[in-house]
């Protein structure tokens, strides 16, 4: 097998050092200010995704046994995408745990509905009151979800 090893020019490297520019702390502040304008629409998208998951995969959803793994995985990723606005509530971490659970279910080819139900209940609780929970309780809840997902 022929292996070619070389160093192509990195244009980004040249321009990032150009005169002028801004301080990293100011760049981060400007980016955070831009993102903040998206808070309401992002949280609306998060709630919509969570409601959609509950409607199709919740404990009372009529046709959930016929749903595929990919659908729940993809819908949960949409929560993670915008969960930075609910990170203080632990929603991002709970959604990552749900993805890990669904990934495991897909590998095994079997749903673990009890674990899915626990995750959906936790996501709803964290979304509603997660930010106001004592940090150790929230941490305990997230650690519990990870254990359930990995079981």
């Amino acid at each position: 097998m022929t292996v070619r090893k070389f160093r192509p020019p990195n244009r980004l490297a040249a321009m990032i050092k150009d005169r002028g520019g801004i301080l990293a702390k100011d760049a981060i502040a400007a980016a955070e200010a831009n993102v903040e304008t998206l808070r309401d629409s992002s949280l609306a998208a998060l709630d919509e995704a969570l409601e959609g998951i509950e409607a199709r995969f919740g404990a009372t959803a009529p046709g959930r046994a016929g749903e595929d793994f990919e659908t729940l995985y993809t819908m949960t990723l949409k929560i993670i995408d915008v969960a930075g606005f609910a990170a203080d509530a632990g929603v991002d971490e709970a959604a990552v745990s749900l993805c890990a659970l669904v990934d495991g279910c897909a590998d095994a080819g079997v749903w673990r509905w009890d674990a899915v139900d626990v995750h959906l209940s936790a996501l709803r609780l964290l979304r509603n009151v997660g930010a106001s929970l004592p940090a150790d309780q929230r941490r305990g809840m997230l650690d519990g979800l990870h254990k359930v997902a990995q079981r």
Partner: protein
Amino acid sequence: MPEPLNSSTRINLERATVLVLDDNGPSLDILSGVVSGFGVRTLHRAESVKDAQALIKIHTFDLIISDVQMPEVDGYEFIQWLRREGPETNRYVPVILVTGHTRTAQVFKNRDAGSNFTVAKPITPKVLLERIFWVAREERAFIECDTYVGPDRRFKHEGPPVGTDGRRKDDLQGDVGDAQEPNMSQDEINSLMKIAKVQI
């Protein structure tokens, strides 16, 4: 290894042309808002790999930030296309992948896609800027072979795993054990740095 990003580091991305790709609109908005905040003036957005490929054929990019999980063609396949079949002007551009979760079955696909870095979602401006700074300052060689095209994946130089001999003759042992002698004094260290005349 490149130096870390400090809050007082000055960066200039005004002239950078950046492509952000994400099939989820709200996520694409967040990515775009973050990159714009960094001072990037020429930002192209794509909501599908097909759109991104069209843009890549007509623009020269300095950085690409792409989501991984997308319908039809995912971010890994997009980067593999870019590195192997993309236009010469964009083939070696730094690429940062962003993903909410990596499936167990896709860990190797991620490693072999040819991106420079993978960042976990939800993204934060601080982490993304650190990674952009890192890929801008890294000095990794590029590798092109039958099975892989992308930045050299061996860049940490941490030696082989502890308890193994390594596959290369010059591999350092990962387990160096306890110190056998006391620490050197500052004078001893300084003496190692002293310029000395040598006879040739």
